[in-house]
């Protein structure tokens, strides 16, 4: 098996360049099709951490599915390192919102799965998986089944599994959405520490504003359906990031800015009449003081 590349002892870090150019997605038959995503262009530079946030239903997960290769855009295309993306492949590691570990495999077998599909032998797979699990502090659970793990641990194994094949980019679709808030905070710190070490290319989908700011170098804000890019906001917070930064004035200013952008879109997403009459009164009551109190 000389054709099979050697498995590196430590995860090899590859930093791909993802581009989405003029992508539109329409559902339904021609003539009465509804547009879910409209002419979206965005970019993840090599080694960049990019988040996409927007109100629910704005098509942010659709964008990730296009980059992952699970669906094809109606117009436009997604590119990875200059190559048009067609079908799913191991060069794009995906971490899903739902737990997606194979319940019939132990933690280590889950991590080995991608290498096995590439044809690596048992010994090479095992040592690579053990190295990765050791780096992630999960080695003692290598022979556990996913149903024996807590939610946060499952997602950590999910991230390790996605990294095992040394993907060009890590795609994360609200990966902490199903976790309780404490675990979620810890996972955000773990992820940001990991990124600071490895400097992977990451495309991160979320609806959580603080999460997007804390983790990212750049945040794209999407409009309500049909989803467009409404704003592209660089995050100037220094690295390494610590939880204390969440109470810094810069962080608060960013939260305020993103919140007002998202809020307009959420109102639009909830429908014209409701937004116009019902909530404008409420708006007057809470106002800027309310937002200040919240942040």
């Amino acid at each position, binding site marked *: 098996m000389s054709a099979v590349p050697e498995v590196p002892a430590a995860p090899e870090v590859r930093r791909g360049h993802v581009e989405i150019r003029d992508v539109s997605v329409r559902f339904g038959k021609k003539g009465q099709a509804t547009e879910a995503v409209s002419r979206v262009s965005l970019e993840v530079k090599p080694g960049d951490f990019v988040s996409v946030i927007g109100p629910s239903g704005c098509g942010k997960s659709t964008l990730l599915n296009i980059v992952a290769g699970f669906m094809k855009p109606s117009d436009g295309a997604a590119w990875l390192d200059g190559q048009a993306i067609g079908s799913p492949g191991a060069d794009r590691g995906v971490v899903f919102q739902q737990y997606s570990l194979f319940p019939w495999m132990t933690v280590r077998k889950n991590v080995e*799965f991608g290498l096995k599909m590439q044809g690596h032998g048992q010994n090479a797979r095992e040592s690579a998986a053990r190295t990765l699990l050791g*780096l992630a502090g999960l080695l003692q659970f290598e022979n556990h089944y996913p149903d*024996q793990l807590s939610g946060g641990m499952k997602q950590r194994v999910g991230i*390790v599994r996605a990294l095992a094949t040394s993907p060009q980019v890590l795609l994360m679709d609200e990966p902490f959405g199903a976790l309780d808030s404490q675990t979620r905070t810890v996972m955000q710190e773990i992820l940001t520490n990991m990124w600071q070490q*490895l400097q992977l290319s990451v495309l991160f989908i979320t609806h959580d504003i603080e999460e997007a700011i804390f983790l990212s170098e750049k945040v794209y804000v999407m409009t309500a359906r049909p989803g467009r890019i409404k704003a592209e906001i660089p995050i100037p917070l220094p690295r390494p990031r*610590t*939880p*204390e930064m969440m109470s810094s004035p810069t962080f608060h200013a960013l939260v305020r800015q993103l919140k007002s952008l998202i809020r307009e879109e959420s109102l639009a997403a909830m429908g014209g009449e409701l937004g116009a009459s019902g909530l404008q009164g409420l708006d007057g009551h809470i106002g800027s003081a309310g937002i200040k109190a919240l942040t």
Partner: protein
Amino acid sequence: MSTAPRRLFEEVSPAHPPDPGPPAIALVRLEDTLRQPAAPTPPAAATVRPRFAERAADALREHGPCVFMGACSLFGVLLFWHLATTYRWDFYIRFNNIPTPLDVLDKVMQVNANGKFITNVGMSLRRIFLGFAVATVAGVAMGLAIGRYRITRGLLFPALEAMRPIPAIAWVPISIMLWPDNEVSIVFITFIGAFFPILLNTVSGVQAVDGVLLRAGQCLGAKESQLMWHVVLPGAAPQIFTGLAVGMGVAWVSLIAAEMISGQFGIGYFTWEAYSLISYPEIVLGMITIGLLGLACSGLIRFAGRALMPWLSFAARSGAAR
């Protein structure tokens, strides 16, 4: 490039101003604690005896009531049978001609004196295993294809659905005409009985495999055949085993009926022949033997299921009321 062997997921910083409680590192540890406690360390040699007695007592406390209730239930049936046949109860249901438990026990000794009875049992078991094995292979293979691909579903499923309501026993005459000898036709009837439960359960098992697992497999680089073998098949396995258990039950029903109608040899034939020869204890012996064989076969499937799907013992299950 390869990274230095530092920790991939560094422990989060201990300073965590918004949370004056335990440091965040404790949170990691907390959420890392397992639902299943680790197995106790093996006892030292000196303490084996008391530990064994302790464990025996524990086992008795845990399983004792269950075993006791089971024994009561079986003993109740035997007692009723004994009383009803010894005193020849006759109240619309007539126990006049039914052999007593002791008659049947005598018969057990008798039939084992020569090899005829064992031969009959062996014949039935061989038919069951042949028919069931073919049904398992065909049912699972077709179930995977029908469950996963629209084209096979469209082409195969309507024909199979049209044949499904025909009971296996109704196939007996056609089966005798279809196959060159009697033995194959009985195996065919057994196959028909087992095939449909296995097929239907496999189809629904395949369709119930979580889509996110399929997508996870794809983006880890699995090709269609790999996806089928490593994701779809194990994902559907629990329901396939349900199908196997049901299929085994129906296979026995079909086998006994086929043996009674067209058989030479076999435990069903033995039972029916006993009726023709007015040898009543043998009828009951045949029935009990069929029951025990059926129990053993479904036990075997349960055992295989547990051995092949160890992960299921950790999955969240809905429990029955205690």
